[in-house]
């Protein structure tokens, strides 16, 4: 796997945890939210392998619930471990975001 997709995957996992943290979400809704935030590059279906992995790692849990309209849907919510993983992600992200931005900007000035 390319570095680009690996980087994206880790970040995407963090974003998904964060969105589910805000409120229990189902698959389609999640993909719409990601796109609304501007992650249009992510193909819609790519969230499902990630959701499966997050479930396997017991960071999230899905329950079949009746939605306001339409059929039963699988709503995801964070487990305690998920909350912890999200906090860790935010911590790492905060630590890396600024330095990376600075480095890139410096590089941009030189070129």
């Amino acid at each position, binding site marked *: 796997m390319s570095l680009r997709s690996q980087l994206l995957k880790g970040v995407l996992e963090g974003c998904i945890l964060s969105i589910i943290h805000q409120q229990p979400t189902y698959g389609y809704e999640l993909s719409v939210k990601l796109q609304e935030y501007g992650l249009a590059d992510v193909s*819609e279906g790519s969230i499902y392998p990630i959701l*499966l992995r997050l479930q396997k790692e017991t960071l999230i849990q899905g329950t079949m619930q009746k939605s306001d309209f339409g059929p039963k849907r699988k709503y995801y919510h964070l487990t305690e471990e998920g909350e912890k993983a999200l906090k860790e992600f935010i911590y790492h992200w905060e630590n890396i975001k600024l330095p990376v931005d600075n480095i890139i900007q410096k590089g941009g000035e030189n070129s």
Partner: protein
Amino acid sequence: MNSKDIIKMNNDLREELSEENKKIYEDMLVYIRLNANKSEQQTEEVLLELLEHLLQAQSEGKTAKDVFGDDFKVYCDELIEEIPGEKKSQALLFGSYIIMHYLAILSTFYGASSFLLHQFFDIGSIEFTFSLGSGAAIILIDLILLYFFIKVVFRWMKGSTFREKEIKKWVEFLQIWLICVVFIGLSLAVTIFMPDFGGPISIPVLTFVGVGIILFIVSFVLNKKYRITK
């Protein structure tokens, strides 16, 4: 929600797909379901999610490629890799159900046909004499053959998904017919060529019918209780 209920929901919802999407989705469904060692519950849950997603996308004028990417097979492989394995207890239950059902059919059919042949046409004997050792060996080898038969059929079905060009119906029929002939032939060959060893026993052929019916009842009760197939 039990995986069997989800399958029912999936069957109903699938009808709402457009012709083109239905073909793609059903290929994905077959391709993903054929992984026998994966958790059935997780498999069905994610299949239903994909279906609902595709239905939404369809109503917004998006294509299956917009949702799942350009290569459906690669996408399915990615999914399959993340689906957790089936629990040991569940796999054991399913395995014993298949074995019991298979032996029930063989036993009942063999017992009933031998009895009837003897009764009406005076062919064969009302007593069946066999050696304990070779009898057990035959059953064991037949079960191993059954295992490979299922494997081969699964592989064949997997190969029938995501075809660019449709294969002719009679070619498909011939392929599956050949697989069945080889399986049945090998199963029979085992009984014919197995040398006798172990002490010989004689039992009335109707015993087989009795054993078969008991196996049927046990597998039926197991199925009712644990919802193995329904």
